[in-house]
């Protein structure tokens, strides 16, 4: 094969989601930790792996194998934020860095290898980069690197190499090196599922297919994957140098210093960017995010993606990058003032007119229309004006659901699938008051009702009066159900008693006794 991919170095930090959680102080190093995304293990620490936890396991199964497992939710923002110092450290040594995702970056090998005296010498420096990162220096960050023709081969060798001396695939050897690996290393689950069903299990078998047939069946995304499987880079033959007007920018007046404000504007910018490319039937493979500050500093970072970047993927990357710049305090290249201008520049585009994987298309049109309407309302009243609800775990009506601003990841803080003993079962109240209302609950002789330390009610509730409203007769009631939460932690401990009461008007309410007084928490209306 005459065409050959660029000699590339890939720097890979193993178990990056776990390493980021350790760097942010969420867990201590050496603990058994697993990071979950969509109910499955995304990454785990070495201790957890030793106990049998693997990527892709369900939560229960992972906890079954490793009972002291510490489970964390997946936070892409946090991972990108912590990765910024690593990127900055590599940037001190070499130029032309492209971040593929948090934990993985690539750069051309030829220049730095010549400067540092050969590829082994360059790798030797990169393997030790973890110790140089200031924020993470407490515990040497495991950092691995590999050199090969093309990003995919370099990534695979960085992951699989036993030591520095094995981490080099000789020039021209990438296709043979990749041929034995399974198709899953492409990291495109939708495509690889179809390939497996067609009986194609290794990259070698995939690479043997005729390129034009792959393009006809799987579209430009499949063609890119095919090139990567052959040890070439995602760059197709018809790469275009993007025209300058494809770059989009937005000005902030006043300059923004908060991540959420910037991220909201970035989302609109990402959509505009994606639409302007889509209008020309182009897709973006590599993207530069440039921010200019009030003091004239210019921050620039290049992101690469294995497939074509979607609008949501672009907006995620811009948000992560802004988070990395704005909250990453103490580093040498942190901006000294607010961001004045944000620009997205497509570095590499390919002709792209959609791709076809499944036979049935998704119902994207209604979703796009709804998304436009909701984004418009957010534009009118601010990002927090439009919320989307997620079920969360908990024992009290108000914490059992969570509201997240539209467009942000729908991840609850507490797992709703856990048992949460003590919560009130269905049917739930249709109205949950944002702030509970005080209520006087008395028996028929107007003596206030109390609940003893053992959870016994002092008398049958007979009347209730909400605030200064009218006195209502209690027709029937159920409870009391005491709930003691986190009694081992004096700061977070809560003792409450739940009681359901139906008044003579037919209204059912959920009452709560906390710190000696009764409150209406929810109304079943």
């Amino acid at each position, binding site marked *: 094969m005459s065409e050959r991919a660029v000699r590339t170095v890939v720097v890979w930090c193993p178990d990056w989601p776990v390493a980021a959680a350790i760097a942010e102080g969420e867990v201590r190093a050496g603990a058994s930790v697993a990071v979950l995304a969509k109910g499955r293990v995304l990454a785990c620490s070495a201790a957890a792996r030793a106990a049998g936890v693997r990527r892709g396991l369900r939560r229960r199964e992972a906890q079954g194998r490793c009972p002291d497992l510490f489970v964390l939710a997946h936070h892409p923002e946090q991972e990108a934020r912590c990765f910024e110092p690593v990127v900055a450290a590599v940037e001190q040594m070499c130029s032309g860095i492209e971040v593929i995702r948090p934990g993985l970056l690539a750069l051309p090998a030829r220049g730095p290898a010549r400067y540092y005296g050969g590829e082994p010498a360059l790798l030797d420096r990169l393997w030790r980069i973890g110790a140089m990162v200031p924020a993470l220096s407490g515990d040497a960050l495991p950092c691995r690197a590999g050199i090969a023709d093309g990003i995919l081969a370099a990534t695979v060798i960085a992951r699989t190499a036993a030591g520095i001396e094995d981490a080099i695939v000789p020039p021209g050897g990438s296709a043979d090196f990749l041929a034995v690996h399974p198709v899953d290393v492409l990291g495109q689950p939708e495509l690889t599922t179809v390939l497996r069903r067609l009986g194609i299990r290794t990259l070698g078998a995939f690479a043997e297919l005729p390129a034009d047939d792959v393009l006809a069946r799987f579209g430009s995304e499949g063609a890119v994957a095919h090139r990567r499987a052959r040890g070439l880079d995602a760059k197709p033959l018809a790469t275009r140098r993007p025209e300058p007007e494809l770059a989009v920018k937005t000005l902030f007046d006043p300059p923004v210093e908060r991540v959420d404000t910037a991220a909201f504007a970035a989302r609109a910018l990402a959509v505009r960017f994606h639409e302007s490319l889509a209008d020309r039937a182009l897709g973006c493979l590599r993207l530069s995010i440039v921010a200019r500050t009030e003091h004239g500093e210019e921050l620039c970072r290049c992101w690469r993606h294995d497939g074509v970047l979607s609008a949501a993927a672009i907006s995620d990357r811009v948000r992560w990058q802004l988070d990395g710049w704005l909250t990453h305090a103490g580093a040498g290249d942190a901006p000294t003032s607010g961001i004045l201008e944000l620009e997205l520049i497509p570095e590499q585009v390919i002709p792209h007119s959609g791709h076809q994987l499944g036979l049935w298309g998704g119902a994207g049109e209604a979703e796009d229309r709804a998304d436009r309407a909701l984004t418009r309302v957010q534009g*009118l009243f601010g990002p927090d004006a439009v919320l989307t609800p997620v*079920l969360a775990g908990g024992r009290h009506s108000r914490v059992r659901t969570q509201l997240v601003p539209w467009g942000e990841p729908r991840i609850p803080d507490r797992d709703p699938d856990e048992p949460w003993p003590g919560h009130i079962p269905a049917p739930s109240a249709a109205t*949950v008051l944002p702030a509970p209302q005080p209520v006087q609950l008395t028996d028929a002789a107007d003596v206030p009702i109390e609940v003893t330390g053992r959870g016994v009610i002092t008398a049958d509730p007979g009347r209730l009066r909400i605030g200064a409203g009218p006195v209502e007769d209690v027709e029937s009631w159920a409870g009391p159900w005491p709930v003691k939460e986190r009694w081992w932690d004096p700061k977070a401990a809560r003792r409450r008693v739940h009681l359901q009461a139906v008044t003579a008007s037919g209204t059912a309410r959920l009452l709560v006794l906390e710190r000696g007084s009764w409150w209406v928490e929810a109304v079943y209306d």
Partner: protein
Amino acid sequence: MSSVAMVAPAASAASGAPPLRTPQLGPRAQDDLPVLPALAPLLPTGSLRRGVTVSVAAASTSLALAVLAGPSAAGAWCALVGMPALGVRAAAELGVALERFALVPAAGPGNAQWSTAVAALLDGMDVVAVRPPRRVAGGEARRLAARARERAAVLLCLGEWEGADLRLSVSDGQWIGPDAGVGRLRGRRIRAHATGRGGFSRPRDVELWLPGSDGRVHSAAPVEERAPLSVVLGAVS
């Protein structure tokens, strides 16, 4: 036909024609929105026609959520404006798909802002439920109803809405389950009423469990009278 003139000034030009027969549909699908099977007897066609304005008596949040649940479960996008106190879990139990459900808790205090937000949502969502912060004046109500008709969305108001096509209310609510400290709330039996204008002018009634013991809506057999219900009450305790 003063009611015709109230719906939309444009409709009054086509004198005599029922205003809702031929809604000016936008680019989206023209099919009706399905409702939950238990609520189907309240509607003449058993489904919710796009473009109509529905008002639900303010005291029944769960009936409004039950009306939303049918379209939502069938893939429609729903938004709810002006209800910071919504019990989201009850909505999920009734069948509302939360991933296609957006809340706009407080869309600004000003009149123009509230109206703008509702109009913007009507452009993109299939069902927009609102609880107005104040009484909506006739002109504004007509303009929003016309917008809903034009964009083939359903406007659902919790509270009074001038010129609503369909009015829903509940009465005779009776909870079963709790009894002097024993049991817990298990279900509420109610009678839901529908009345309205045009195709909805014939009043309809249905007896429902809203919510039932699993949080969903079930139809209660209409032949059952109060007497058997009290027997059930005794059996539960």
